[in-house]
Each structure stands twice: as structure tokens, then as C-alpha cells.
């Protein structure tokens, strides 16, 4: 940064701090929640009182990072939560008097350096890499979730079907309230509808840069759960809560822009896809097996990535077919801005910071190394024999957390994109989860084997 840029950034920061302080006064804010996430994308944080706000905005708040999964390295447990003043937001579901606000924080070491395990910093690093190529990365996720009666009674809250608009759809009211709260929190919603399964809903967010979006997804989950709990319900983002229903995905639409121009669009190309778009897609497809551990990080994630529930199973590109891993959603031919790529593997329970970092990293790899994109498949690879798939170069996505971790553990791309510190603690944490799952006797085994054997 030049000196002028640094001065401007300092002024912008000071202005944002003053905005927060005035807003706090205006809304009679008593408590401020400092938000950040652990390595799995779980929301963490602590509260400060209004008296501490100004000091904390300027110098941050120290806390013991050792208790946060994957945050502190051995021997350095003290960390600093440094609020990002531009994320100041009053929580709309709290009472109007004595209201509560939140601030997203960057995590720093005590010496003020960005922590290399900080999710926001990891994503920022990849965004900077795109920025050096003059590219801006926009994402728009479609978040699916199940609305249940309660966590103790996990039956669906309603029995609506896909796009149902009937008035007895109790879930629709809640969805409307949720959308209103999201809008109040500065998270624009593109549209929302009832999904295929009982109690399953989808809310699509309007595209924005990946860092703001990752923050928004974290906020989204809090809002959705909060609104549900006010009506006595419960929301789960578990990737596949019911054997008899589809899972909850987080299909993400994405585009790269060079200034005002959509870098994925080329009017001279027969399918309107630019070379950049083709290379980006090729990067996604080639590296998909490696990044699946990040986009689908739970044992349960792999109960969604199976045939027959509209989720991707193979690392392929399909033109019209919904079931592919990468596809080009329908777009208006006269609107070049709307051409975009959809990546369908992530589930709603991923860590959005690391997931978007890994996905963008894979795509940029394709651009930098000029990968070639294979022609889109015209047949569903599920209907092919293994040798046919091999002939078409179709690779299967990992089918369990275990196999995903094995591939991720060897991934140079992940090591480069997320950094060794993050990868180390991520793999350690996830291998433990797999080991625990492996030695657990499941309901399936009891019902299947107990009487038979």
C-alpha cells in the first residue's frame, strides 16, 4: 500500500468506528458480541459492555485462544480479537431498548500480526491472489436447511413440497420472517422457497464478494435458528438428517469479474463461455476430490453425496443436467453479467471461509496453469460402467470423510491455499472424528445384524 492508501484506510476505519459508536448510543446498545469462527466454521465469541466498545474497536480484545478449536498454535494461547468496524450490526431480534450488537473480528497474535489460522485471513489471502490477477470473485449461495419441531422431536415442522405456496404451510411464515430479519441485517435475499422434502427450505442470497458472503452465511445461520426458536421450532443445517429425504446443500453460483466485465463471458465463443471460465471450471473439476474434505467436512456430509438425492457424486461438468458437480445455470442471453458457474458439492454445514478459499484456489489454479476443460458429459456418469467413466476421464468424488481426508492430506493445492497451520489442525480434528465414528455401533448395524447374526 502507498502512504496515501494507508492514510485513506486509516480514515475509513476511523469513520467506521465513529459510525459504530454513534449507532451504539442511538440504539441504546448495552452489550456487543464479538464474533469469530473456529476452524470448522462454528460461531464463537464473547460479549463486551458498551463502556469497553471504543477501546476494543481501536485496540482489540485479548482472549485465551487455546480453547477455540484450531485457533492457537502450541505455546501461544493469548490471541487478540480485532473487530472489523464495518461489520457493526444491531441484532434485530433482540429488544429495542438495551439492544445488542455484533461485530465480526479478525484474529491476531499478541504482537498484532494476523493469525495464520484465522478463517477470514485465509480467505483474504486467496482473494488477494485473485486481485493480483485483476479478478473479483463473487459468490451467491443457495442455503438449504430443515425446519424441525424441536431438537428433541426432530420431525419436520411442515409438510410442504417444492415451491409450495399454500397457506397451510406453517414453515412459509417463518421463512418470511427470516428473510425480513436477514434484510434488516444487511443480507440481501434473492429468493426463497419450500424445498422438496417435508420441512426443508431454501434461501438464496444475492451475490457479493466471498469474504462478506462468508460473514453473511455465519450470520444467516444465527438468524435462521433464532427466528425458528422464537416459534418453538428448531433448524438444522445437518447435511443429511433423514434417510428418506434429500440432504441440505449449499450450491454456490460464482463469477469472476475484471472491473465491470464478466470474465466468464465471451460473445465470440459458441457457448458464450470465455477461456477464463473454461480454465476455472477445469480447475474446479480437477481439484474437486482434494477440496471435498473442506466443502463437505462431516461424516454425515457423505450421506448426502450419494446417487439418487440430487447431489453430485462425480467430478464432472454437465450442460443442462442438474446432477453434475459443475454446471452453467440458465442465464439471459442479453445479460452477459448473468453468466456464471454453479458448484454443487458444498453443504450448508461447511466452514464458508475455508470452503470459498479452497474453491477459488482450485479455480485460480486452472487459470494460472491453463487447464483444458473436457467437453460436457451428455450422459449421466452414474449410468456408465467403470471403464466407460475412465474413458471419459470422470473421477468419483470421495465417498466418505475418511477417503476425503486421505486425498486432502496429500493435496498440495490445499496446503498452499489454506496454509500448513490450518491444514494440520483441520486434519487432526477430522481424523479424530472419523476414528470416533468408526468405532461407534450404529442403529443400522443393530437393526440389520442383531437378530440375524
Amino acid at each position, binding site marked *: 500500500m502507498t502512504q496515501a492508501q494507508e492514510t485513506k484506510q486509516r480514515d475509513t476505519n476511523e469513520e467506521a468506528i465513529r*459510525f459504530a459508536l454513534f449507532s451504539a448510543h*442511538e440504539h441504546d446498545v448495552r452489550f456487543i458480541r464479538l464474533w469469530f469462527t473456529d476452524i470448522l466454521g462454528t460461531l464463537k465469541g464473547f460479549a463486551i459492555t458498551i463502556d469497553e466498545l471504543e477501546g476494543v474497536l481501536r485496540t482489540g480484545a485479548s482472549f485465551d485462544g487455546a480453547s477455540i478449536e484450531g485457533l492457537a498454535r502450541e505455546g501461544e494461547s493469548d490471541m487478540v480479537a480485532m473487530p472489523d468496524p464495518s461489520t*457493526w*450490526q444491531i441484532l434485530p431480534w433482540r429488544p429495542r431498548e438495551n439492544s445488542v450488537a455484533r461485530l465480526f473480528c479478525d484474529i491476531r497474535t499478541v504482537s498484532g500480526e494476523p493469525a495464520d489460522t484465522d478463517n477470514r485471513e485465509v480467505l483474504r489471502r486467496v482473494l488477494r491472489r485473485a486481485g493480483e490477477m485483476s479478478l*473479483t470473485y463473487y459468490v451467491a449461495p443457495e442455503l438449504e436447511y430443515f425446519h424441525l419441531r424441536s431438537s428433541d422431536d426432530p420431525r419436520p415442522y411442515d409438510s410442504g413440497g417444492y415451491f409450495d405456496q399454500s397457506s397451510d404451510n406453517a414453515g412459509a411464515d417463518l421463512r418470511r420472517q427470516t428473510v425480513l430479519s436477514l434484510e434488516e441485517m444487511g443480507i*440481501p435475499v434473492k429468493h426463497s422457497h419450500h424445498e422438496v422434502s417435508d420441512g426443508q427450505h431454501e434461501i438464496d442470497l444475492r451475490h*457479493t*464478494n466471498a469474504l462478506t458472503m462468508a460473514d453473511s452465511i455465519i450470520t444467516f445461520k444465527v438468524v435462521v435458528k433464532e427466528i425458528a426458536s422464537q416459534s418453538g421450532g428448531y433448524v438444522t443445517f445437518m447435511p443429511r438428517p433423514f434417510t428418506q429425504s434429500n440432504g441440505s446443500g449449499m450450491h454456490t453460483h460464482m463469477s469472476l*469479474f475484471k*472491473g465491470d466485465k464478466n470474465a466468464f463471458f465471451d460473445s465470440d465463443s459458441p457457448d458464450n463461455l470465455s477461456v477464463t471460465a473454461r480454465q476455472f471450471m477445469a480447475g474446479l473439476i480437477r481439484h474437486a476430490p482434494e477440496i471435498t474434505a473442506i466443502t463437505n467436512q462431516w461424516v454425515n456430509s457423505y450421506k448426502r453425496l450419494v446417487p439418487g438425492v440430487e447431489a453430485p457424486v462425480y467430478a464432472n461438468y454437465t450442460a443442462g443436467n442438474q446432477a453434475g458437480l459443475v454446471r452453467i445455470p440458465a442465464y439471459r442471453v442479453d445479460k452477459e453479467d448473468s453468466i456464471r458457474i454453479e458448484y454443487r458439492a458444498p453443504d450448508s454445514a461447511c466452514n464458508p471461509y475455508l470452503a470459498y478459499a479452497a474453491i477459488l484456489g482450485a479455480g485460480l489454479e486452472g487459470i494460472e496453469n491453463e487447464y483444458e476443460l473436457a467437453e460436457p458429459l451428455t450422459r449421466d456418469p452414474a449410468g456408465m460402467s467403470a471403464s466407460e467413466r475412465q474413458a471419459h476421464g470422470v473421477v468419483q468424488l470421495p465417498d466418505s470423510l475418511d477417503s476425503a481426508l486421505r486425498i486432502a492430506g496429500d493435496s498440495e493445492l490445499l496446503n498452499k491455499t489454506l496454509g500448513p497451520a490450518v491444514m494440520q489442525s483441520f486434519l487432526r480434528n477430522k481424523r479424530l472424528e472419523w476414528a470416533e465414528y468408526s468405532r461407534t455401533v450404529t442403529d443400522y448395524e443393530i437393526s440389520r445384524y442383531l437378530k440375524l447374526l
Partner: protein
Amino acid sequence: MATVLLIGFGHPDSARLAQELESSAPHHDFGTVGNSVPDDVDAANSVALIWCPRSLEDAAAAIADAVANGLPTIALLHDFAIPSVDLSSGHVEFSFSPNDCAETLRRIELALARARGPVDRDVIRHGDLMIDQDRYEVSLSGRKVDLTYKEYELLKYIAARPGRVFSREALLRAVWDYDYFGGTRTVDVHVRRLRSKINDVRYQFIETVWNVGYRFKSGGDAPG
């Protein structure tokens, strides 16, 4: 908050007054500085309070020094001292000692207010839209509008320059950090949200200029 320079406060009575002032006006900085104004004084945000009960000459010198430094000045004097001191400079206030803390404070505030000139709140007004830059508040027809920080900054920027057409690129550079990863489409998203908050049936403040960017329409012309 301002800095109050306590000049000549060596006497036990003056020390007591200094203490009282300090405890009843914690929003100001009180600094005892001996008999003259220090070199590094921030004249725009300070006031000189002079009390030299033992020496008329010291008092006169201190007043001259404070006035020369461009400070709003209050001299606490015994009534018999008045004829000996030049109070011709318009910036000097005086008050008879012994001095009451409440009165002195009131004079400090008055001197500060006078020095700062007429109250000029930084307000941008267009028709029923008001942007109060001192309070970071926006209201439309008297009703407060809740904006996020970036929405506020964007509105403030274009509303201060009505009629001018801005490209998305220019707005992004002006309103967002250099370190920002948003790109120009972010501007569109924010404009859309801003419009939904500050436009109503009668007003449309932000106009899209096809293929260029956006323009703020002063007065909020009614849409065609």
C-alpha cells in the same frame, strides 16, 4: 472536549478551584502550565484560564501571551485590578474573583463556543432527506432510516455531490477500502438496498445512468 490551560494557578485558592473544575467537567482536559502558554498548544481546541492573584504584572503578561497565541482567554481578576489590565482584545473575558466553579465553567463553555463560531452542524439536506454527518444519522420526512455503515457512506458521498454522475469504479474507490475485494457489482447491491430504504412513492434520489453509473437527484424528483 477541549484543553483548559490553567495559567498562574499557584495560589491555594486557585488550586482548590482547579480541583473543583476538574471533577465537575471530566470531559475537558485541565492542565496547569505555569505562567505562560506552552509552544505546542492546540489553539483551535483550547482555552486559557488565567488567575494570577499575587501579581498584576504577571496577569497582564499572561493575558497578552494567551491572546498572542490566539487562545480564547478568561482572566479571573480582583475588581480593583481591572483598570490596570488591557482587556481591549475581544477574545478576553473576565470574571471577578473569588470565583465560583459553576460560573467559571459556564464561561469556559461560552468562550469555547464563541471561538468555534456559530454552531454549524454538518448536515446535507435534499428535500425531505437529511443526512446529519455529526451524528451519522439519516432521516426521511423526519423518520429515521437505519442504514448499515457502507450504505451510509455511499449515500453521504453521492448526496454531497448532487447531479454528478459517478461510475461504479469511482464509487468503489471513494467509499470502499483499497483492501476491499468487492468489485464494482458490490456498488449495485448497495444502491439497490439504499433505494429500498430511502425511496418511497414520491421520491427517487438515486438515479441509474445507463452504461455509466449513478447520479444523485437533488430534491428527490418524483418519478416520471
